[in-house]
């Protein structure tokens, strides 16, 4: 077991409560640097809350969190921004700025590392080396020709790759992707997972992905964490997950039916 200083992400007895709903219930989890982890489980199980915790985008009601070796409760606003900036987060719906160009959206990835004026200069008057860097990243994700396109003219799959490029432009130590295959068509899903896992491997990034598709999860992510009712259901290497495990994870019991 790695210690807090070595772990990329470490949660200890973390509970997240929204009003009277317990989203995560006493969860403990350690992810080592460079690990590639899939979070699986039914909708509403707490996967997204878990990912948001790992990006310091969600406050825990109780428990201890350390991200990239830094205890969260000790971070001031400035250090918090630095930690967030070192973790690339790819939201399910990409959250790009629709009226800006692809180049500018990718440049937004560095906001956490820049002062206000520097970021203003960079986004609206980008220098050649910045454009070259962004172009290289776009080439890597396969949409180099869209460098100057407005984001709202792109397809969903292309927007996703802009979001990935933006996360990479952060020069992150970890990548988190929330349901990256939930809103792309099946033929693209495999390519997206392949891209994320190759990128993580190449750049030795810690990767956290939430998803439903057990076939893709097993194929691309060596470690799977099952989440159900806000608790960790099973945390094991992908090959140790049986079909019965998945069935049980996704099985609707009486309480689910009553709730929905």
């Amino acid at each position, binding site marked *: 077991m790695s210690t807090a200083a070595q772990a990329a992400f470490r949660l200890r007895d973390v509970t997240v409560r929204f009003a009277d709903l317990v989203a995560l219930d006493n969860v403990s989890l350690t992810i080592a640097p460079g690990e590639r982890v899939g979070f699986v489980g039914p909708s509403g199980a707490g996967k997204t809350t878990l990912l948001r915790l790992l*990006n310091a*985008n969600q*406050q825990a009601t109780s428990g201890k969190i350390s991200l990239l070796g830094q205890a969260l409760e000790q971070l001031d606003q400035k250090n*918090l*921004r*630095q*930690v*967030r*900036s*070192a973790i*690339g*987060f790819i*939201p399910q*719906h*990409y*959250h*790009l*700025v*629709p*009226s*800006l160009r692809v180049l500018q959206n990718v440049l*937004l*990835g560095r*906001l*956490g*590392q*820049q002062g*206000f004026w520097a*970021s*203003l200069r960079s*986004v609206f008057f980008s220098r050649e080396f910045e454009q070259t860097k962004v172009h290289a990243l776009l080439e890597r994700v396969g949409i180099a020709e869209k460098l100057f396109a*407005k984001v*709202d*003219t792109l397809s969903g799959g292309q927007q996703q790759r802009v979001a990935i490029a*933006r996360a990479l432009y*952060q020069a992150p130590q970890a990548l988190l992707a929330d349901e990256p295959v939930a809103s792309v068509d099946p033929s693209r899903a495999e390519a997206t997972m392949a891209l994320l896992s190759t990128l993580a491997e190449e750049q030795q990034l810690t990767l956290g992905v939430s998803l439903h598709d057990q076939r893709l999860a097993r194929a691309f992510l060596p470690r799977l964490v099952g989440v159900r009712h806000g608790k960790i259901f099973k945390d094991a290497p992908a090959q140790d997950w049986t079909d019965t495990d998945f069935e049980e994870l996704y099985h609707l019991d009486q309480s689910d039916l009553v709730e929905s």
Partner: protein
Amino acid sequence: MNRAAHWLGPRRSALLGILLAGMIGAWLIQLDPAQLFGRAQWHQLGEFFKAALRPALAYEDPNPASDGVFLSEIGFAIYKTLLYAAAAIGLSLIGGLVFGLIGSTRAWLALASPAKPFRVLSMSSMFLVRLVMTILRSVHEIIWAILFLQALGNLPLAAVIAIAIPYSATLGKVFSELIDEAPRATAEGLRANGASVLQVYVFGLLPTVLPDLFAYLLYRFECGLRSAAVLGFFGAPTLGYYLSLSWGERHFHEVWAYLYALLAIIVVCDLWSGAVRQRLTTHHAA
């Protein structure tokens, strides 16, 4: 009783109520349609409207006070009206951006500091700014003009500030609503990258609301042209100033020339802003 209530219904009773209020109001202020008839002023009014068919192309006075050309004077008045409106709108854009930011719930929520004293401060400044905006908006620019002309004398600045005050407040209100209704996701995405509050505002919120804000700004520019022209009656060298001079001398053909000039710039501005707005919105949807 029950059937009567059924027949009345909310719409009919509202209609009846308004009619009744109108009748009571007319009776209380002693509106008398008979006053309209048999007045000498009708003749003058007729003359005024007859002049509409032949707007002046030269000074009506054979020995005009000004030795310039009438048409170039109209051109100058149009030019000044445009300048005053542009200056006022420019100033109110700055004011509106500041008001809009402070007055928006979202902008403050974006700060999302868990510290309680800060929350109290942010909420109270938001409500204070909203109150100030409402007050500034509810006073017409003509009232502001009277105030500032008293205070500053007949300076261009007085007229421009008079327009900019209520316009800033209106822009601020519209702007804060645009920010509050803008999709939340973009800003949140930037926060997740480690962006600061100011960065979230400038890069995440401004670009999403800017097309709408700009479209509204163009509409306000049109209103600004009218306001700038009207402030001429109070001494600003815009169309209204020349119009009031000609009116005073009963040079109705000149008056109509100025009115047509005002109409023309507003129509042109409307066509232009319509075209720009169309481009903004179609671009947005593409």
